[in-house]
């Protein structure tokens, strides 16, 4: 599903070139559950953003399904990732001005799904995550765990093939974290590929494979 070949990403500071990613080669099959680990500043989030097509890279090839991402224009990339990829953030990043229902609905609006269909899809996922009762609340009225649940619901609403999660449990307590990880496991069993960035060995163990990063390079 994902094929990274010789990915380099750098920033120039004065005369020095600092590498954020250095010769990253990675192959990920459909339905895999991968954990990316490494110390702070090792490039975990950068790698996740590159895979999620939110960030550009300077050198290398990136094939997603059958598309060569490095050759696509921004517009095509956007339509590619909004169809296949869902994002979960450490800080949830829900829109404060919108209700739970509206937050979850947002990606569907951008994919031009019809109102009636949207209603059905959002109702399904609210039901599945047991948050029907909270659909009219605003994010600030929810606990962290509940907010993250909404975040995941929003990421899954468009039925992506790949879920990218940047420290999804970083702001949660251990019980809430465990629930989220169990949910991930469940989703993975249903066939959704997951790539998560994490500091926690325990969370990493939920995955099928661990990738260790150090100074922008994969060390295994």
């Amino acid at each position, binding site marked *: 599903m994902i094929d990274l070949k010789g990915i380099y990403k750098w920033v120039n500071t004065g005369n020095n070139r600092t590498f954020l990613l250095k010769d990253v080669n990675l192959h990920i099959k459909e339905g895999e559950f991968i954990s990316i680990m490494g110390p702070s500043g090792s490039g975990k989030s950068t790698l996740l953003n590159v895979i999620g097509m*939110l960030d550009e890279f300077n050198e290398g090839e990136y094939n997603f399904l059958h598309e060569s991402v490095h050759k696509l224009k921004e517009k095509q990339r956007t339509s590619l990732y909004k169809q296949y990829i869902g994002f979960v953030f450490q800080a949830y990043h829900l829109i404060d001005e919108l209700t739970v229902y509206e937050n979850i609905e947002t990606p569907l609006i951008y994919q031009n799904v019809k109102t009636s269909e949207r209603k059905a899809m959002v109702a399904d996922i609210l039901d599945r995550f047991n948050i029907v009762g909270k659909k009219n609340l605003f994010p600030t009225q929810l606990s962290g765990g509940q907010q993250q649940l909404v975040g995941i619901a929003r990421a899954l609403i468009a039925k992506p093939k790949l879920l990218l999660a940047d420290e999804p449990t970083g702001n949660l307590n251990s019980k809430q974290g465990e629930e989220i990880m169990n949910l991930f496991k469940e989703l993975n069993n249903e066939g959704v590929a997951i790539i998560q960035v994490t500091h926690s060995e325990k969370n990493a163990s939920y995955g099928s494979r661990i990738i260790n990063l150090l100074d922008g390079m994969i060390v295994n």
Partner: protein
Amino acid sequence: MKHKLFSFINIAGLGIAIPFSLLCLTQVVVVFEADNFHPSPDRTYRIITDIKEANASTTKYATSPFALADNLKTNYPVVENATPVVRGSTWELTSNIKKINVNPIYVEPSFFEIFSFPLEKGTLPELPNTLVITHGMAETFFGTEDPVGKTLTHHDYGTFTVTGVLKPYKRGTHFRSDAMVSMRSFKLFSKDNLKKDLSAFTYVLIKENSDKKDLDAALAMSAANTNKEIAQSKETFHYRKQLVTDISPAYEKLQNNSYVESYSDIAVNLGMALAIILLAAFNYINLTLARSLSRAKEVGIRKVTGALRYQLISQFVCEAVLISFLALIAGYFILNLMKQFIHLHWITWEVDNNIALWIVFILFTIFIGIVAGFFPARILSGFQPVKVLKGTISPVSFGKMGFRKSLVVIQLVATCCFVFLIGTMFSQFEYMATDNENFNRKNIYNISVAGNYKPLQNDIAVNKNVERIGLVSTPFGGTSATCVIKKDNIGENSIANYYAANADFIANMNLNFVAGKNLPESISDSASNFVVVNEQTLYMMGLGTPQEAIGKPIFLNNDKMVIIQGVVKNFCYSIYQFATQPLVMQYDPAQFHVLSIKTKNDLHAKDLKADMQLIWKKYYPYEEFSFSDYEKELYNRYYPGADMQFMGMISFVVFIISIMGLIGMVTYNTEKRLKEIGIRKVMGASVSVIVKELSVGFLKLIIISGAICIPLGYLVSSSVINVFAFNDGVNFKLLVILFCVIFFIALATVVIKTAAAAIANPVRSLRTE
């Protein structure tokens, strides 16, 4: 400085607003200094007349009876000197080549004893028909030549001899005038009852060390005498003194108090200063709040380190004051630049007391700083340090968003109305300057003549380009001579404007006859008995419909009976503001002074002038040739180019300020929603969708402003246009264009700013570190 753009907008916005405010303030200071140069300010008084009507209502006049000065001087020992001053209405004076509107006052020699108006050269005017002119007038009329002994001609009052030139004096004084004419001239021209007519300003100088109460007593006694004389009328006079330095600004409403600014004029100036600066201060408030996110952290840290709220408030206010002082410096430079390029007679740049001026400037600047700084300071200093440092605070959404929105709406509406106002004035002036509906100016060239012009006229007539040569006393568009007319021998006289003209002149002017016909063609040497009048003359004299009036006799200048030959539609032949005055046109060769030449088709004025000059030289080898392209001459007369330039500048500044305000508001809004924009982008929103979503709110604001400013602007425009009795109506096309330009730019500003936020990489705004 992290926010270079914001600092720039703040300083530049205030900086371009400040010079106009400073200018307004300068005008205010000038008003207070208007009459501070007279030699004995503590002993010189003007006498004010209060007239009590029978119904107990009182009218206050700045003028007093003409004889009062003489009376006070001769009968009361407390009075050292007294002098009457009479203000004439505008004169049109002609030197051989130039014809200029002049603003005269009549003075006695004793005037120069009491007041300090020294002569540059020559002597004081004493004899009838003598005058002294200001330095500026001398230059306009005579250039570098010595004006003393030269003559100037008035169409009614005859020829005046220039006896001297005044040194330049302060423009703000209420004695403002272009010429000081001998009082004996006034006595000659005026046949009014000078005793009770309030025709003169009376100035009194009391003796040194004398009691002011003696003057009051003297005034009471003269008033009693006057009241005895006018006992048959139901009015009573009361005189009181006013110190000459108290004249300007006028704290009470006085009739005839010309050239004295009142407190309400000052209020207008101050209001202008405040309005412009407030528009700029709105921006400061908006931008400071927009920056609140970046300042929040600073506030948090300062609070944690022990700063109290009032300390933070004073810090922010001080910053605003500092910014406004920087803007004052920038503004002062711009003001000095403006001084070089703007020359408007109604703007004074210099004041006597610069320290007072600077105190006013500095107080004003501090005031701006406090106004602009206090609001944001209160809000920013209210941040909870814990929330700020945890990073869970978003830019303040202070109070009701409605308040900030209304700031933007006010700015846009003010801009629009201002631009409409100026646009309307522009189109009216343009109409006045180019109009050919009232009378024809196209292809008309005027040559001033004197004496026997016939050979010259005949010679010009053979020129192949010349279609027709009209003869007239003075062309339309300036001031004219007046005559008195009455219906019959016994009736009361009324005043009408008088033009001596021949049939060809009337034909040249394309006047519109509603009844009767043009004057008869004539080459006779004596005045004819036929006149052409306008509708207003009929209306004033009660001569019935134009058709009825044809053939009726009227009496011109008391004894000469003339027949109405034709009636022309009312048209504007002088000042567009005023309704038409009665008009009489008569063939009178003795008064013809101008050949009004109509050419067959458009041609270069220069070529025609050269041809005409050749012919002129044949007959008048030693006299100056005065030739004018009528269309151009009237354009220059009616189009106040410098004024419009200045007004245009103000409206541009106001416009820039409100666009900056919009930029600030949009920046604030996008900065506040940066995270949301990031999320939406990650959710798959395209740039155009985000721009749409972000602009909708502003679009609403812009539409609201439009909905307010279109009717309001129309009202403003039509009230301006109605000042002019002759107008071209509100120029909708221009207003629509101006409106579209303003709102297109406003919209473009919004779209560009939001697009910049929408294009930005979402990774940046979503990073949590």
